[in-house]
């Protein structure tokens, strides 16, 4: 599974992408897995209220199941326009 990071999430983690094998059943479980990796991940995921998530390029929430999912992205609230 590809995990993508944008804006300050990308900056805190220090890279735009991870490719990983995960047994996480939901986005929330994936976040727990990532937080446990290293302090930079912990720093990026410390406040979930400040984060948004997309699953296979559609906006989703932290309870979204990950079965069959190829791409998950984490980013702050969007500021387009």
């Amino acid at each position: 599974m590809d995990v993508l990071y944008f804006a300050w999430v990308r900056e805190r983690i220090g890279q735009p992408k991870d490719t990983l094998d995960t047994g996480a059943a939901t986005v929330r479980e994936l976040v727990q897995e990532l937080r446990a990796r290293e302090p930079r991940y912990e720093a990026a995921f410390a406040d979930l209220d400040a984060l948004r998530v997309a699953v296979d390029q559609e906006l989703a929430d932290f309870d979204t199941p990950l079965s069959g999912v190829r791409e998950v992205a984490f980013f702050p609230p969007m500021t387009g326009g």
Partner: protein
Amino acid sequence: MDVRVQDVEFDLGAELNRFAARQTGMGAVVSFTGIVRDIAEGLDVMQIEHYPGMTEKALTKISQEAKTRWSLGDVLVIHRHGALRADDLIMMVATSAPHRVDAFAAAEFLMDYLKSRAPFWKKEVTKSGEDWVAAKDEDEDALTRWN
């Protein structure tokens, strides 16, 4: 429907003329243009990041939604990414409809959704540092009027 995400500049007048010229039987064309403001003191660059792939999908979905809600002829969305400077054009939307009420409403709907549901992030780079632009509560609140 025409959705474009690009790093290069666009010619607002030419785009609008082309959009209007390819309409048939439409009584109204409405357009909105977003421009970089130098709110941050000493703004050097407004860096716009996006999520390639999802951005195009999200803009297409929002445009399709507009077409289901109002009687529209066509929708055009152009949004830039990359390094922009004060007074550069960031983006434009244009809508056409038989009647102006639909064209205006759809353009406002597109803008409200594009601000908080299309994956773009703005960063202001100034002489004294750089900061991600925080999303505004009022932009999120603006969506509730379309429920």
